[in-house]
């Protein structure tokens, strides 16, 4: 399947003081295929929102993109948002739904006036009527009530606001939608409705692919085709969602899975254990594997060198020394042992 977004070795650091950097995203590579939902999970402070901003070309001082390449549909796209540049590709090629997006509606404007403002900033000659009409058509296409255009944000429920923002942010038919924690402030029914809307946007070909950032593994299990687990600014595991969740290779993914509350009648009082400690200080990240101070399988080598990439299954990779040591010896060596 064709790849619509490729990011290679993205390094996005926050400036701190005169010479310090907080390495929030440090050497992350990912690909997104046409029609795919890629989930990114990890605890707070692992750099997933920073990555989302870089991918959406919305990196702003003090966040500086120090390296890496972003290619969307064969076109190189700058990740740093510089003052003075029009930012035309934003919202047209890659669109970002930031965290708490539902609060980005203007409380003093009706939704339709907000839509007009958004469209006008990209297409200076659009008339108010055209803008509203386009929004109406899109709402009808997605089975949402058209009357929301006449409402003020406070008249809409949280779930509806979030859906309206999703519709507005895809009004310009971007190829890729980056949704950063789109469900975090919503209750379960509204979460379901929002994710159904995102799936619909994808099915109808309005957008080409979605990068979904969340820390809720059950949500990813239901909607994401592939899942990437981040820890301390780096990718620790990537693979098909089913494999990552049910056959996690990396010790961090395992710990994350063990700490997940699952709704099953049998789970009551089956004690689950969370992960001790907190994420490391990213201005001085741990050497070697960044997870080693909290890892139950850490050995001296973990603190020294960057972990190797291990492939437990096709399309499923994890970066871990322990896995490398656990791996069965190559077939030739195995035969030698078996012969005598």
């Amino acid at each position: 399947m064709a790849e619509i977004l490729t990011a290679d070795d993205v390094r996005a650091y926050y400036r701190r003081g005169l010479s310090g950097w907080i390495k929030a995203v440090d050497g992350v590579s990912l690909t997104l295929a046409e029609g795919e939902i890629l989930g990114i999970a990890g605890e707070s402070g692992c750099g997933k929102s920073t990555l989302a901003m870089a991918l959406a070309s919305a990196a702003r001082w003090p966040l500086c993109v120090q390296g890496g390449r972003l290619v969307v549909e064969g076109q190189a796209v700058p990740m740093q948002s510089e003052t003075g540049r029009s930012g035309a590709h934003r919202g047209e090629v890659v669109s970002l739904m930031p965290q708490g997006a539902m609060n980005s509606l203007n409380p003093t404007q009706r939704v339709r006036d907000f839509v007009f403002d958004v469209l006008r900033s990209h297409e200076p000659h659009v008339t108010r009527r055209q803008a509203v009409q386009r929004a109406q058509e899109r709402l009808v296409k997605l089975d949402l009530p058209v009357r929301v255009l006449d409402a003020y944000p406070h008249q809409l429920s949280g779930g509806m606001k979030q859906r309206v923002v999703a519709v507005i942010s895809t009004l310009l038919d971007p190829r890729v939608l980056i949704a950063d924690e789109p469900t975090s402030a919503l209750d379960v029914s509204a979460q379901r409705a929002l994710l159904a809307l995102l799936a619909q946007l994808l099915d109808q070909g309005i957008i080409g692919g979605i990068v979904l950032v969340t820390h809720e593994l059950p949500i990813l299990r239901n909607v994401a085709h592939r899942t990437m687990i981040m820890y301390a600014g780096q990718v620790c595991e990537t693979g098909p969602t089913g494999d990552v969740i049910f056959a996690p290779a990396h010790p961090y993914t395992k710990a994350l899975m063990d700490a997940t509350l699952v709704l099953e009648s049998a789970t009551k009082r089956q004690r689950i254990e969370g992960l001790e400690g907190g994420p490391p200080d990213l201005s001085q990240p741990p050497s070697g594997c960044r997870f080693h101070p909290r890892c139950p399988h850490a050995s001296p080598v973990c603190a020294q060198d960057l972990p190797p990439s291990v492939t437990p299954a096709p399309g499923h990779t994890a970066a871990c020394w322990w896995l490398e040591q656990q791996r069965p010896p190559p077939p030739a060596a195995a035969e030698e042992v078996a012969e005598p």
Partner: protein
Amino acid sequence: MSANGSSPLLRCTDLTRVFGQGPRALRAVDAVNLTLQRGEIASIVGESGSGKSTLARMVLRLLQPTSGKVFFDGKDVTRLRGFRRRRAYWTHVQAVFQDPFGSFNQFFPVRYVLRSALRLEGATLSRSEREQRMAAALESVGLDPGSVLGQLPHELSGGQRQRVMIARALMVSPELLVADEPTTMIDASSRANILNVLLDLNRDKRLTILFITHDISLATYVSDTLFIMQGGKLVESGAVERVTAKPEHRYTRRLFADTFSLHGEPWHRASGGGA
């Protein structure tokens, strides 16, 4: 308040709170009856706007009910006149709130937060007694008093901060702890630790806990009893085993159906789309 073993610890009868008046009045909590036994963990589950936090605030006596009564340990506490009486009530009932960042004064260390909780009791304790109580409270939530007491809020992680808030609530040895969405702002990886701290307190100290949450998977993990609220009304209540196995109300069934589970067919495979 006398310790009466047989009576329920908390009982609300026809508890109602109306916001506003006239035709636009909103019945945020509408004639809710609930009973909490000593040593029980119960959860009030409902979507945003279902009135669950309003109910919690009335139980905590932070909000005056429009009508109905709250009984704590067999005593009517609906009208507690004067700050002193309410302060006495709060030595029995304590709360942990959603935002562990908001409930800290960022200029004071943990020691100050815990010490000010002792003021509720009104008694003057010696320095060593105070230190001992603070250390005990921190140890019971799994924190090391030696390192945490002198730290400022920004030096703690979100999970640690929420544990300090639990320790603060424990300073006065309450009988009932109201936990209003205690883990929504905590990471998935440390959420389980916070819940386990509360479960251990319930087991070891027979602390009665009332959870307020919108997350039914969390509620089924921790509780003995579930109270399901919708639009200000209590639509279903019962033992967690019964409610999860055989939900009676339509809304409860919808809550279970809408919750994302790890098992079952993912959407994209069901719809046939995608990679």
